[in-house]
């Protein structure tokens, strides 16, 4: 014997040619909400996972978010550098365990070049305090013999097809066309001649294991190497006539005078506010200390506005779909008065009619929701490599988030509520018509 639910399903299937468009629009709305929520979560996770075990990021005083974005994610720029004297003073502080200076500004084929010390590989961590690991080779020597050595991230190696021993040249500026940049040397914007450092090629000596963070997209060299590259450079352009051969460069003083920022690890986390005060009140130059978590929080506060706007638009799309469900079912009711009369003739009461129409709405909404989730998952699976490569965001193909389920439930509930309207109308019609609809 057939159940009411099954009757509703057959009835809806019988009118599939019109209902299919409602299902499609519900599916699109669901897919939008589902994907947006996943993206929102994964972007945050990607960012939050990118830096761990660093207590403070110190740089010239500007915006905390800007400093964090540039020093950890290599996005944007900072207007000022900080002097190495300040870095050394910071390292002297009794609560400070380690200080790793960072110098940014050059690039290789669009991948940022990070000048740092060998300690970077010991102290920098990602995810849940996971240290960086080498997949092949070793870190650069950090002395004059190994001056032109580079350690590349896993994505650089994979995308460019680099193996150990590969010779690479760096370009000046953050992309191959030499736009404005900021690293330890405080160059002004580069000349339009797209200057490069072809005369001093680097050798790949190490390839890092994948981390899913900006590290994968970075070329690491020593601070001294960056210094050597820029010996004959003034104001962001090479001095005319003054080419210093790669070997000759070793004879110069290659100790940098300034860097972009410094990562600081403390002996105890409890000292973080103390050290931050010390940094912020530093006398020799205007510095600031940024806690990565706090800066991320500020970033979310800004991004949250955009996210909420997107979510609101998606919710509107869902609302429109649900209203169209209501309109389509209402419009079809007149043609179904005969069907309702048959149901009443076999003993269905108005409450059954009410239930049937409501169930039908739930079927349609449910189909839309299921289709939407399938679409969204397919779409994300297809887009995941592109997002990872283009934006460094790793989409997690893991179990759906509670908030995603909540959005699904909201769509289903809206569908249920929207079908109550037509159901009520059908109820009234079936009462008025009796056994023979007057149409």
């Amino acid at each position, binding site marked *: 014997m*057939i159940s009411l639910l099954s009757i509703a399903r057959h009835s809806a299937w019988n009118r599939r040619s019109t209902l299919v468009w409602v299902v499609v629009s519900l599916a699109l709305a669901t897919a939008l909400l589902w994907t947006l929520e996943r993206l929102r979560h994964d972007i945050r996770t990607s960012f939050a996972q990118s830096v761990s075990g660093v207590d403070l990021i110190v740089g010239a005083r500007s915006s905390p978010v800007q400093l964090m974005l540039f020093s950890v994610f290599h996005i944007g720029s900072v207007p000022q550098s900080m002097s190495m004297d300040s870095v050394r003073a910071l390292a002297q502080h009794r609560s400070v365990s380690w200080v790793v200076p960072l110098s940014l500004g050059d690039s290789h084929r669009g991948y940022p070049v990070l000048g740092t010390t060998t300690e970077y590989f010991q102290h920098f961590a990602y995810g849940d305090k996971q240290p960086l690991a080498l997949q092949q080779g070793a870190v650069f020597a950090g002395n004059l013999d190994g001056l032109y050595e580079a350690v590349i991230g896993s994505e650089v190696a994979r995308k460019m097809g680099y193996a150990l021993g590969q010779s690479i040249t760096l370009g000046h500026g953050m992309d191959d066309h030499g736009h404005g940049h900021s690293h330890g040397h405080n160059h002004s914007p580069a000349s339009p001649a797209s200057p490069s450092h072809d005369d001093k090629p680097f050798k790949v000596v190490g390839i890092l294991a994948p981390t899913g963070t900006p590290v994968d997209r970075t070329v690491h060299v020593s601070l001294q190497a960056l210094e050597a590259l820029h010996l004959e450079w003034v104001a962001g352009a090479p001095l005319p006539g003054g080419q210093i051969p790669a070997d000759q460069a070793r004879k110069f003083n290659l100790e940098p005078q300034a860097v972009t920022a410094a990562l600081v690890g403390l002996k105890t986390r409890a000292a973080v506010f103390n050290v931050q005060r010390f940094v912020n009140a530093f006398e020799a130059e205007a510095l600031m200390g940024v806690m990565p978590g706090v800066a991320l929080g500020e970033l979310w506060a800004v991004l949250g506005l955009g996210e909420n706007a997107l979510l609101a638009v998606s919710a509107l799309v869902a609302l429109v779909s649900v209203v169209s469900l209501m309109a389509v079912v209402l419009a079809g009711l007149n043609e179904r008065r*005969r069907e309702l009369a*048959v149901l009443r003739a*076999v*003993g269905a*009461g108005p409450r*059954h009619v009410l239930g049937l129409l409501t169930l039908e709405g739930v079927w349609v909404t449910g189909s839309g929701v299921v289709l939407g989730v399938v679409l969204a998952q397919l779409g994300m699976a297809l887009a995941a490599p592109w997002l990872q490569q283009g934006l460094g965001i790793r989409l997690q193909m893991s179990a759906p988030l509670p908030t995603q389920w909540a959005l699904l439930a909201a769509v289903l509930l809206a569908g249920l509520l929207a079908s109550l309207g037509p159901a009520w109308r059908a109820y009234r019609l079936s009462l008025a018509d009796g*056994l*023979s609809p007057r149409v």
Partner: protein
Amino acid sequence: MIDIEPMRFAWTRGGPDTLVLGRLHVTQGQTVFLQGPSGCGKSSFLGLLAGVLQPQHGRVTLLGQDWAALPLGQRDAFRADHVGVIFQQFNLLPYLSVLDNVTLPCRFSKLRRERCQAAGGPEASAQTWLKRMGLPEGLWARRADTLSVGQQQRVAAARALIGQPELVLADEPTSALDAALRHDFMDVLMQAARDAGSTLVCVSHDPQQAARFDLQWSLPELQQTGARA
């Protein structure tokens, strides 16, 4: 089993009376032929018997139960239990199978479901009635709207009879059929109703059929009697 006390019915409150009837009585198992031109209120009369319409004055009683005295929900349940209906046409839910259409009343009535137990449950009982109505077995699993009009009327009759309701109402059940088929269909329907012990009230404007019914009513005449009373 049907008792009508003098009554008036109008579609709209305060509108013109559609039906004015005097006292009427039908005993269990009788067959009633109800005749009258189109628009004389035959459908309203059936609606009143089935309890989906209520008179403004007077009473319609089925099996001793005054329809108007029942709350709305119980009225539907009472109808599901005791009344089977056959329309002129479009009796079936087109998207369900023949068998699912026949068992529908058992879906809504526990009593009729229980009465099917002797036959082995609603499905088995549905098959028995479809066989009685002479519908070939090969059609039972087909979608209802793939059947001819004549076949659909047989399915509708099987559905009206399943679970042996005390009253079967038929609203011009043969008018959509070819003349050759009409007689045959009525034969089978009346015999089946007799076997089920059901009272059959059949509305028709085909006087040829009238002679084989226990009672022959002409609605216009009933109305005149009612108006005089």
